[in-house]
């Protein structure tokens, strides 16, 4: 959707084809966190930082409200070793414009009532934001339409062919659409779409579990709680680490798991246990809360964990914006902006080299 938004703004005509409605994909199912502050500052953090500027610009102006909130997040530290690592990271970040602050255990307890007294402290990432993905998708759709962009919902792309004149013919069963440019933004389906044109793009589903609790207004947490540790293997079940946040309605969302390439949406009880078990280490009061829903979503993970953004090195006119894994919300606007510049003006900004499809698909 972001790709179409920047393309129509650049004056091009677009058609978004989706097998469902705007909420059909992972974007309609995931959380809306924009994570700028990270343990490993790098390309993803840079995409997130730039995307945040775009989100802010959109939120301030034409798009209307999508509940963009600069509420920050707490990276929770369990051990003294983690605390030391965190202090070193903050020292290295000094002067780089990222606002991270170290909190002692006492300061954390004051900021987030209910956290475990056993924690060593936390890093507060002031720039981290959240938005309401549904409102954002709706706002994008309206803006794209206002600029003349079209939509074909509930149409599944089943075949793509090239005409002798170099146009793509996209067949959905309900319609046939011709265009000189096709962008593969099919999320976890990016691979089958690319294969319609004979390219093998390495995007595979990475399943995540989220546990939703009943509404607990008395336990509303002021900012997302995140685990300093990476997802690591639980005794049984899939690798998990902790993310806890309050929704606007007052439910808590407790995550999260990272499974290899599991493409079924089924819920694994051992994984849910591992998620809850770990979350209790940070927020013991969760013990008293009731779970109303457990759902899974599929993150579109690329072969090396970085998104795939840019022109195909083989098929002229084919572009990719996929493989964003667990960071698609954090990096969507900058992905759209970069790719639309490439398509509309033929200009590749330097950072795009790192995301080039050619690292996987070579002529």
């Amino acid at each position, binding site marked *: 959707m972001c790709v179409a938004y920047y393309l129509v703004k650049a004056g091009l005509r677009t058609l978004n084809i989706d097998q*469902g*409605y*705007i*909420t*059909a994909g992972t974007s*309609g*199912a995931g959380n809306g966190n924009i994570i700028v502050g990270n343990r490993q500052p790098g390309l993803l953090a840079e995409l997130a930082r730039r995307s945040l500027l775009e989100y802010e610009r959109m939120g301030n102006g034409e798009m209307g409200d999508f509940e963009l909130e600069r509420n920050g997040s707490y990276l929770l530290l369990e051990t003294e070793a983690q605390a030391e690592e965190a202090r070193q990271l903050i020292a290295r970040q000094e002067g780089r414009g990222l606002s991270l602050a170290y909190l002692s255990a006492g300061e954390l307890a004051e900021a987030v009532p209910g956290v475990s007294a056993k924690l060593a402290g936390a890093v507060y990432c002031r720039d981290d934001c959240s938005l309401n993905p*549904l409102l954002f998708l*709706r706002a994008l759709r309206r803006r794209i339409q206002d600029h003349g962009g079209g*939509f074909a*919902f*509930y149409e599944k792309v089943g075949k793509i062919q090239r005409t002798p004149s170099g146009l793509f013919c996209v067949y959905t069963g309900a319609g046939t659409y011709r265009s000189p440019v096709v962008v593969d933004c099919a999320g976890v389906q990016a691979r089958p779409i690319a294969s319609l044109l004979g390219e093998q793009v390495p995007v595979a589903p990475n399943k995540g579990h989220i546990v939703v*609790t*009943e509404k607990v207004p008395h336990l509303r947490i002021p900012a997302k709680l995140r685990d300093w540790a990476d997802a690591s293997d639980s005794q049984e079940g899939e690798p998990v680490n902790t993310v806890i946040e309050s929704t606007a*309605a007052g439910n808590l969302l407790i995550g999260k798991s990272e499974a290899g390439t599991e493409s079924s*949406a089924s*819920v694994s*009880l*051992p994984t*849910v*246990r591992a998620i*809850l*078990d770990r979350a*209790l280490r940070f927020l013991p009061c*969760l*013990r*008293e*809360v*009731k*779970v*109303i*829903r*457990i*759902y899974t979503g599929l993150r579109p993970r690329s072969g090396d964990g970085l998104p795939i953004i840019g022109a195909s090195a083989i098929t002229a006119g084919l572009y990719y914006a996929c493989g964003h894994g667990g960071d698609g919300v954090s990096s969507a606007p900058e992905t759209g902006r970069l790719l639309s510049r490439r398509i509309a003006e033929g200009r590749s900004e330097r950072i795009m080299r790192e995301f080039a499809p050619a690292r996987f698909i070579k002529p």
Partner: protein
Amino acid sequence: MDSDKLVVCRCEDVTLAEVLAAIREGARDVNSIKRLTRAGMGLCQGCICESLLEGILRAECGALPAAKAFLTARPPLSPIGVIDILNAKTS
């Protein structure tokens, strides 16, 4: 009765007017209506409102294939304590 006073989902307090707006906007399956309006996301997880949503969508748009008529089933069947999940014996 006024469609903005008629509540379709009691748990999440979603009115008929909101559901109709989601359909008018383009949603043509029950899961999309759920994601757009929160109808079906409440404590009963759609036990009460799911068939209403389906009925409204049929009345507005005609016949529906099964894939569009039902909410994706999500566990648990009814609310369960965190501690009960942790203590449950794996069968």
